[in-house]
């Protein structure tokens, strides 16, 4: 069976309902019109009769039959009047509008009443005023002068009592036809029919519009769900929503039911998804808490690393101080002991004493200078200031002078004129000391003649590049990034803490805003320190920010 579109179905349902209502209303209107027409007709006829009652009464009272005849003729001339006659109190016909009827049929005059009496129905009327109205049906054929009344035809008979101050004079009988009433009724029914047809047509147009209006949102909904379910199908979630593939404009009720099913599944899916989401959110909260814990742990370990780095820096500096001090301390100690020995042996001359003390004085000044240099380096000055890279390089080389000389390292310098950088005074110095110290360690593994360390400072657009290259054999490629990791050291068996290069990179990248990288060149490693130039703007921002 072909299924009807939802729009057609709506149209049929609404239209049918409308037709049924219209038919019922139409039938009621016709019934009501019939009833009211009959009543109006009765009243009109009774009023007509009333207008002739006085003339008839006068005529009968004065026994002026000519006048009575004229009156009756006048009455029968009315289109709705078929027959008029007057009876005396005995029921004998005094006069009639159509005398011919009685003569032709050869009937006694009083029989007329009996003829019309058969099959009568009393009508509501002005009985109290002497009217008596009834509906009569003709039982026989009746030949009148102007027309023939056929058996079965219905008429309205109205009779009224003629009297003279209460004394009965006779009775006026009028037989009305139904034509006038039927004509009026027919006209009314025609009008009603036209009205009903017009309103039915308008209503059907409205119903059509309404069914479209009602079905359109439904189609839109179906369209969306269909589209959505297709998309879900493409996303391979077919198990969740049944795909709906139909043209919403051609949708039938069956498909609406399908749609409802789909929406139900859809709703269940949504609930399921919401539950999944809630679960995921709970998990996320858990993960967040874990993340936060991990973050705290990370911050703690960073703090520890910073502490370790600081200690390592101090350790390195201490090592450098120890190294710088060892030789002069040895000189002072031995010199003093030598003088003590000489005095014990009485061999200490004034000149030797003077020379010895001068030498001790010189050595202690050197010690003092060394400790002052390192103290300055460790001093925690918090204010950043324009720093000359060249000066810092020279300072570092000066601090490491003893070691460089001791291991016969040839130092080459190539400095371009560069702008200053923005730095805490000793941060770059720490980095350079670390790089030089590492280089000297590496250079010990190559013959003295090949121990070279070079410093190159080059001006670039917005930055400057300081390269520290040694000839110590370089770094294995696989370790080039690892050497910057904390606690990673290739000198574990000696004095390496594994924090020097990590600390250096941290200073260059986090404090100086630059980059520290390494590559292998020719005979060894080359560390590049790229540093942004000092600018007044950035400086004031740093200071006030």
């Amino acid at each position, binding site marked *: 069976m072909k299924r009807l579109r939802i729009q057609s179905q709506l149209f049929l349902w609404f239209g049918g309902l409308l037709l049924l209502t219209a038919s019922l209303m139409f039938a009621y209107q016709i019934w009501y019109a019939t009833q009211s027409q009959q009543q109006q007709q009765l009243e009109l006829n009774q009023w007509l009769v009333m207008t002739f009652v006085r003339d008839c009464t006068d005529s009968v009272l004065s026994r002026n039959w000519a006048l009575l005849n004229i009156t009756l003729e006048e009455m029968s001339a009315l289109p709705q009047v078929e027959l008029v006659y007057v009876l005396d109190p005995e029921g004998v016909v005094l006069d009639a509008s159509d005398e011919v009827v009685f003569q032709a049929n050869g009937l006694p005059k009083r029989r007329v009443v009996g003829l019309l009496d058969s099959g009568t129905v009393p009508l509501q009327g002005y009985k109290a005023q002497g009217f008596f109205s009834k509906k009569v049906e003709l039982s026989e054929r009746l030949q009148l002068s102007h027309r023939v009344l056929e058996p079965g035809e219905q008429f309205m008979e109205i009779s009224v009592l003629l009297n003279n101050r209460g004394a009965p004079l006779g009775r006026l009988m009028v037989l009305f036809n139904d034509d006038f009433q039927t004509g009026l009724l027919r006209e009314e029914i025609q009008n009603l029919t036209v009205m009903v047809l017009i309103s039915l047509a308008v209503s059907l147009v409205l119903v059509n519009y309404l069914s479209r209006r009602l079905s359109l949102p439904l189609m839109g909904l179906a369209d969306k769900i269909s589209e959505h379910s297709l998309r879900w199908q493409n996303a391979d979630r077919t198990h969740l929503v049944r795909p709906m593939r139909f043209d919403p404009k051609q949708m039938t009720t069956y498909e609406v039911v399908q749609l409802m099913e789909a929406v139900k599944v859809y709703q269940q899916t949504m609930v399921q998804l919401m539950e999944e989401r809630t679960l995921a959110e709970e998990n996320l909260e858990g993960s967040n808490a874990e993340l936060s814990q991990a973050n705290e742990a990370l911050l703690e370990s960073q703090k520890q690393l910073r502490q370790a780095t600081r200690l390592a820096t101090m350790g390195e500096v201490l090592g450098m101080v120890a*190294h710088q001090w060892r030789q002069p301390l040895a000189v002072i100690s031995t010199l003093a002991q030598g003088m003590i020995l000489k005095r014990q042996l009485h061999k200490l001359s004034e000149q*030797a004493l003077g020379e010895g003390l001068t030498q001790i004085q010189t050595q202690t000044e050197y010690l003092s200078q060394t400790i002052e240099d390192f103290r300055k380096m460790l001093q925690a000055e918090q204010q950043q200031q324009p720093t000359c890279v060249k000066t810092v390089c020279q300072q570092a080389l000066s601090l490491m002078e003893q070691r460089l000389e001791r291991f016969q390292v040839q130092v080459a310098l190539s400095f371009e004129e560069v702008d200053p950088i923005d730095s805490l005074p000793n941060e770059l110095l720490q980095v350079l000391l670390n790089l030089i110290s590492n280089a000297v360690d590496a250079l010990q593994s190559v013959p003295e003649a090949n121990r070279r360390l070079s410093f190159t400072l080059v001006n670039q657009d917005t930055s400057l590049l300081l390269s520290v290259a040694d000839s110590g054999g370089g770094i294995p490629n696989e370790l080039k990034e690892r050497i910057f990791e904390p606690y990673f050291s290739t000198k574990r068996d000696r004095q390496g803490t594994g924090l020097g290069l990590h600390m250096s990179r941290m200073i260059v990248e986090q404090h100086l805003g630059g980059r520290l990288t390494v590559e292998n060149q020719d005979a060894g490693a080359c560390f590049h320190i790229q540093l942004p130039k000092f600018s007044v703007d950035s400086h004031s921002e740093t200071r006030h920010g």
Partner: protein
Amino acid sequence: MAKILVVEDSAVFRDVLIDILETLDHEVQGVMNGKEALTVLEEAHPDLMITDYIMPEMDGEELLRTVRGRGWDFRVIVMSGGADVKGVSFKHLFDDLAVWKFLDKPFKVPELMAMLEDL
């Protein structure tokens, strides 16, 4: 009274050490590195050689290997600017080189005197 050769790159320290040894009536000669020491040793052998460990040109270890390689068997004291200055002891390097004594700088003069008395 012994013949002693001092090999030390620091002129100040070398002079101080020579002064002490001379005060103790020893015959002392000083050179500043291993190469100069070998030149001197070509001429004559001392009773004792006191050498620094880390020196330019030729360090103490290389000098000692050359000396022992040539079959010279005089006594040797090795000095260092701290035995653990580089984190490890270097003394094992001399296991096969017949080093007589080690001295850590700065050392106590009586300690040196005691060694000299054992000569």
